[in-house]
């Protein structure tokens, strides 16, 4: 692999740099891309101590 070949692969190398950077960032903030438990993020006005729910059974 020489400099000429590296130059020809510049777009692939740029993609590698960006994607590996994103992978590192995800690792730092604890972001699991797939298989993470889906959550619904909301804001409560009741100080989080009570949340009405529908119970079945």
């Amino acid at each position, binding site marked *: *692999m020489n400099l000429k070949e590296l130059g020809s692969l510049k777009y*692939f190398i740029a993609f590698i740099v960006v994607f*590996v950077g994103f*992978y590192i960032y995800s*690792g730092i*903030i*604890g972001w699991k891309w797939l298989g993470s438990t889906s959550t619904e993020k909301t804001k*409560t006005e009741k100080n989080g101590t009570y949340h009405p729910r529908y119970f079945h*059974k």
Partner: protein
Amino acid sequence: MLKDQTKICVECNTVHTVIGNLSTLLVCRNCGNIIGNETSIDIAKRTLIDGWSTIRIGSKGKYKERTFEIIGRIHLLLRRDYKDFWCVWMEEDSAYAWLMESFGRYAFCQDSLFNIEGSVDLYLAQKVNLTERTDVVIDLIDRCDYLAYEGESKGWQDFNEGFEVAQGTTEKFFAFFICSKQNAEMKFLLGEWVDFEDLKLSQIRDWDKAVEIRNEITIPCPSCKHVNIPRGRSLTLALTCESCGKYFTNRKWSKQVVKFNEVAVPAIPIGAKGKIDGITYEVMSFAVKYVRKYKYRWREYLLFNPNKGQVYLSEYDGHWNFMRPVPFFEKPKAKTEFDYKNNQFRLYQKFHATIVFAKGEFFTDAFSITEGTHCEEHIAPPYLLSAEHDSASYRWFEGEYKSRDEISNAFTSTSLVLPPKKGRGYTQPVIDSFSPQSIIQLCFITFFLVIGIQFFFAETSKEKEVFEQTFHRPEGSADQKMLVTPSFYLEGSSKSLVMQLTAPVNNDWFYGEFTLINESDNSEYDFSKEIEYYSGVEEGEAWSEGAIREEAFLSRIPGGSYHINIYPQFSNYNNQFSIRVIRDVANFSNMWLTLLILSIFPIFYFIRRYHIERKRWSDSDYSPYDN
């Protein structure tokens, strides 16, 4: 002759001063008259027709840090080649040497000829042991039919013309064998190959200016008597007539005249100059070659540079290969696949070609030699390695695929109309600009980096348990009720959070809805989990499904105080469950996903490459894809 002795040519009165201390022959550099002859043979005056060398008498250079001066020359015209042995005088050592020049190849030789004892029959590809460490391989057997001298020389001109010669080479050494049939005597000259640039020659000719050339050469056409003036001067052994277009040789051993039935127009005109790989070449000739076996024809251009020799450009369906001679190569015997310059070459085709049209000047009898030559082409796209051998020579050529643009850019001074590209060339790389090895190397480095980073994450993740508690169904309660955990603190900035949920169920279930609540900003993360575990025996075989433990992986949970609201649903039999909350847990799925995504381009590239290679080799009799 004595050093510094002055001698005057009786014919042209040119004054000569002897430079060497043991010179045995002095030929007038002006008129070719023999001024002094202390050799054992009679040497007649002979006109030495200049070839196209840039070296001349008086040129100075350096070899292994020793300076030298060119003082004379012996010119041997062979049937397939020529050899100029320039006599070298090294004043510092008071020593002679020979600088062999032939089509851009140079070898610095010792001054003396060595005798070979006994009768030796040389044949092509024979290994000849010359010294303890030198075995040369014979790659040329030829005959010298013309011999001429110039200037001052010493020693080995005890042969008159009409002798057999052979050339032996190794990667480092050059040996030139001279055999006189009259007395069955064989001698050889031994030297080392040297690059033109390494000789640091000065006072040489500008190869493009003929002002110093003494005499013009003319070659009349044997058919129409048109007088042709060859650009290659004495190097031109065969040519096509500028007037009638017939091919003929201008040497006494061959009187062949060929009239071609086909007519073709070269895409690069004869005489055009182009710069390829930093070297300027001039187009000398053009030939259309045909292989009857494959009904395949291609066009071949002979290009020449006086200091670098002859090279070839071949074109087929708009695909170009640039070919140059290989100084020395020994292919592993009986192998169709071998390594050369870190590339694995494989035999692609074997053929005999004929020339069906030619135009321009040739340095050999190209028509006859092509007909008698067996060719083997090995490819490692974009590279090509071709072996050509006949009864008298074994030659290797290395080639490289050139794009249409590269050819256009090489001949910028000439307006070219190049043939359009059709299909895929047999040496055309899948992607021109990089090799498969570079992709593999890049992927290897990247994968190693990603795996290394993942191990770093795994090693540095804290995996700290921040909360653990077992909950029971409230007694006497028929309804499901909400449970609230005590507060717990998540350290640091955004990290992952894993909640492990365990319920001792057997053929039973547990379901819960959970709300992770940030107590400082009241943000909530809602999720649900269900635990099911069933087992039994059916037809004598035990089975089970589900598990008593489930795990929730929550991404990007900021630091702060939290508690969890739990809305459990118990079955009739299960009354408890437990929760364990762990902060900052590494996950490996991102790594696998990264490796997969980064593999998409290489996988696509290699699949495409496989199909292209398979199609490329479908035209070959030696396809590795055939069973």
